[in-house]
């Protein structure tokens, strides 16, 4: 037994705990059930305590963490959204790993009764010039493309960033957004003893057994042998599931619904029964199987994709089966809800498991972290001899250059709601039945977080919110995916602790509660961890899609303004990374009060229709941001920097938070200045929009001058 439970990833202490819950030795099936539900992936053993410190409630938050996804109110509708990682599967098989990552998060949204309306993908890879990384990148993008496109959910945004720290451990986080009438939100509840537990969708095979524990382990040489854990996605089946489940949720037959993600039948049944404070009986002989001779253990732990659990009113099973059949889907009654709080499993005439439901879902141990910071680094200062070529080099760098080669492979238009497509600061999709829309952005700069986890996490939230503001939307709530190394190591524990604290502080200040998310630990290979990478998925709301703003300069003669403070640094910047290959120094902290003032001010200027374009400053600093504004309409700008004491390279290429470039008609300049003055937001006129060239001067002397054509061709690559 000892070697068995250890192989399943349980510690001696955890095993003792199971014995004391049951008052006896567990059967093999029971042991497997505890092993998956008590895995890091399912039980959040190392993160639970800290995650409880995040703000989760606020005006218009309909559903917070704990359900399958969070939900924010928008008129009569609920906007449902969540992000999830699929890092480990992607490292082993990029195409299928990414594809099944999309499938999984979509089913979470479906489990809320919502129609999935958008996907975003946040990706991190090592140097794209290395063949192995190239293979991973192409595979991941192709996998997302194949799955997302086929199910007819547009992939409207995301990010792709590169750093050596992700070379062995690529990150693949996928966010899904859904829309449902707010009085129709579905619940993952196994209500009503006697009601049927119906499994709908794919047959159950041996795939992914122990996927949940696998996701909680470090990758090492033996991961190769665990390869049968690789899952193949079937987007066609998923599309049928979406249509069938949405149709069924419109009937009175279905009282609860739950996706089958990690730990398959075990977790979906245990979670729904636990939430409803009921129990369940399962008859495994009824589960449609793909392979013969599967044991109870295998059936309970299978992670076969494209399956959903429906809790169906007793007596209505046939109606539900008929609807499923109409969509060409298998369905089966695999159990019943009971009242006694036990989960009993029968197979081949035998009772193979009998455990208290809540012991699976609530009794997993919770571990404290032992944080200790790592020593700081001395800032390496990049050298800039020729600003023109530095700008062009930055524009051509993989982190900044156009991502069209990625998003062109995604159907970002299907469903005909995409108002702002990939390429803007945030994507914007209309919510049918309203005049409004939702803006979406994912952000998380691992380099900054690595240098200062607390400030880096604040910066991630602030940037995500700023991106959403730049298209004219009010930030409302976030979902997040926390990608870290092994939390049992003190410095990783420190990073994690600080990130959660920073994220919480920023979310409180910005009024964007955390409605859900996902933690992915053990992103390490041979002891080398990824940068701590919290990915923030921001949801913003816009009342009138016709008022949306884009980042491109609009007309010659418009005034270019820089809003926000002046503090910048090279620590963690794109240019520093380009020249030194690693981040160093101390990034500029985010002044959250300033950030809030800036965002509120920009939104109020937009409401008055004074803003013709807006773009936030991020990687590459002021010069890159200006260049990015030139691209879409092929318009340039003539900019005069204030004659300050800051070294020129810093002014041009260093990075700092809370800064946005806007343009306006000259006649509105006065009003904008007045509003900014009143709000206490620094506002500087940089220059004017001109034809054909971006030029930057200081003290009357031109220090950078590049044609827009040149900018575009370098950036497009």
């Amino acid at each position, binding site marked *: 037994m000892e070697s068995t439970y250890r192989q399943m990833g349980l510690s001696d202490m955890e095993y003792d705990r199971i014995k004391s819950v049951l008052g006896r030795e567990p059967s093999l099936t029971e042991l497997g059930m505890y092993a998956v539900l008590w895995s890091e992936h399912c039980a959040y053993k190392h993160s639970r305590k800290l995650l409880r410190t995040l703000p989760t409630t606020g005006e218009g938050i309909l559903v917070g963490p704990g359900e399958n996804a969070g939900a924010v109110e928008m008129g009569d509708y609920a906007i449902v959204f969540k992000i999830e990682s699929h890092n480990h599967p992607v490292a082993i098989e990029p195409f299928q790993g990414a594809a099944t990552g999309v499938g999984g998060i979509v089913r979470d949204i479906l489990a809320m009764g919502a129609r999935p309306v958008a996907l975003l993908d946040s990706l991190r890879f090592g140097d794209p010039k290395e063949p192995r990384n190239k293979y991973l990148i192409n595979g991941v993008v*192709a996998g997302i*493309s*194949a799955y997302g*496109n*086929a*199910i*007819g959910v547009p992939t409207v945004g995301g990010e792709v960033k590169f750093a050596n720290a992700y070379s062995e451990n690529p990150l693949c986080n996928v966010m899904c957004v859904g829309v449902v009438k707010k009085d129709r939100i579905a619940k993952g509840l196994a209500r009503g003893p006697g009601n049927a537990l119906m499994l709908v969708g794919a047959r159950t095979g041996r795939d992914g057994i122990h996927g949940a524990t696998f996701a909680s382990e470090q990758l090492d040489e033996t991961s190769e042998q665990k390869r049968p854990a690789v899952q193949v996605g*079937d*987007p*066609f*089946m998923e*599309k*049928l599931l979406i249509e069938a489940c949405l149709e069924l949720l419109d009937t009175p037959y279905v009282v609860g619904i739950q996706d089958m993600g990690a730990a398959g039948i075990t977790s979906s049944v245990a979670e729904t029964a636990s939430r409803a404070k009921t129990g369940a009986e399962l008859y495994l002989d009824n589960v449609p199987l793909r392979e013969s001779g599967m044991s109870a253990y295998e059936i309970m732990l299978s992670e076969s994709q494209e399956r959903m659990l429906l809790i169906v009113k007793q007596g209505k099973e046939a109606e539900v089966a008929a609807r499923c059949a109409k*969509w*060409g889907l298998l369905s089966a009654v695999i159990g019943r809800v009971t009242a006694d709080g036990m989960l009993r499993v029968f197979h081949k005439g035998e009772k193979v498991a009998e455990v208290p439901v809540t012991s699976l879902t609530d009794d997993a141990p919770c571990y404290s972290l032992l944080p200790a910071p790592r020593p700081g680094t001395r800032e390496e200062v990049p050298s800039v001899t020729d600003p023109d070529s530095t700008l062009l080099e930055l524009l051509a760098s993989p982190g900044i250059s156009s991502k069209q080669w990625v*998003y*062109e*492979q*995604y*159907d*970002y*238009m*299907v*469903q*005909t*709601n*995409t*108002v*702002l*497509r990939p390429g803007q600061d945030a994507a914007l999709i*209309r919510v049918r039945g309203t005049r409004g829309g939702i803006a979406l952005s994912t952000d998380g700069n691992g380099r900054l977080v690595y240098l200062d986890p607390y400030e880096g996490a604040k910066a991630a939230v602030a940037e995500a919110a700023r991106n959403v503001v730049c298209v004219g939307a009010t930030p409302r709530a976030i979902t997040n995916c926390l990608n870290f190394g092994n939390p049992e190591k003190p410095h990783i524990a420190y990073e994690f602790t600080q990130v959660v604290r920073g994220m919480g502080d920023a979310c409180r200040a910005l009024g964007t509660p955390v409605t859900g998310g996902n933690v992915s630990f053990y992103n390490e290979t041979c002891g080398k961890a990824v940068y701590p990478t919290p990915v923030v998925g921001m949801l913003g709301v816009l009342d009138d*899609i*016709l008022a949306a703003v884009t980042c491109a300069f609009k007309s010659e003669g418009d005034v270019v303004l820089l809003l926000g403070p002046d503090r910048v640094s090279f620590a963690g910047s794109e240019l520093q990374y380009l020249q030194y290959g690693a981040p160093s120094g101390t990034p500029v902290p985010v002044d959250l009060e300033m950030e809030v003032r800036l965002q509120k001010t920009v939104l109020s200027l937009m409401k008055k229709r004074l803003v013709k374009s807006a773009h936030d400053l991020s990687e590459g600093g002021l010069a890159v941001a200006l260049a990015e504004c030139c691209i879409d309409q092929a318009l340039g700008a003539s900019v005069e920097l204030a004659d300050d004491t800051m070294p020129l390279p810093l002014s041009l290429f260093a990075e700092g938070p809370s800064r946005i470039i806007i343009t306006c008609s000259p006649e509105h300049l006065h009003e904008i200045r007045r509003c900014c003055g009143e709000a206490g937001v620094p506002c500087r006129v940089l220059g004017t929009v001109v034809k054909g060239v971006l030029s930057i001067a200081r003290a009357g002397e031109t220090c950078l001058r590049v044609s827009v054509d040149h900018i575009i061709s370098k950036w497009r690559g």
Partner: protein
Amino acid sequence: MKFGVVVFPGSNCDADCYNAIADIPGAQVRYVWHKDRDISDLDCVVLPGGFSYGDYLRTGAIAALSPVMESVADFAKRGGLVLGICNGFQILLEAGLLPGAMRRNSTLTFICKDVYVKVERADTPFTSLYRQGQVIKMPIAHSDGNYYADQKTLDALETTGRVVFRYCDTEGLATAEHCPNGAMNNIAGIINESGNVLGLMPHPERCSEGVLGSGEDGRMLLMSCIHHLNRGR
């Protein structure tokens, strides 16, 4: 003026087509389930884009054998208007209602972007509101739009003027460089001999509303159908 939008398992532009049509004054529209055979109430059948049967085996191959396609073939024979968009075009090819076949894009990737196409024929029921030679913008979104036909078929298409849309640049020049997917002769859309069955890869329903950022050139195609049908009454 009644349109029917066929729903195959895996169709995913069915609702988009439905909405774009319903937005046009005077147009009625309903869904048609792939197992239904009665389409006698319809004036125009739309086979929408998407991934019918997951694009498994070959795009459109399985859908082409569904019950509704027998009715669609009869309907077409009797002169009814049939419009196949993207996967719908692929289904028409597989069903033999239009000649040729689709191969994987020459890039081997899915491509989603706005492209320019030239209206080669403005005298069809689907294009009468365009100008002959007009260059319009429409989005494409597919992996298999690399049109193929043997030389004889291709010659026949060209000499009888059945190429209706051709990929081109903003000036209408149809060079290989402006062919996104490798399609022979830059073919983006063709019509059958009797001029009532059109298949095209670009998505008119995605450029029927300006707010979506791809212009409104596609709306004219849907309106042409209505115009044509109204004239027939």
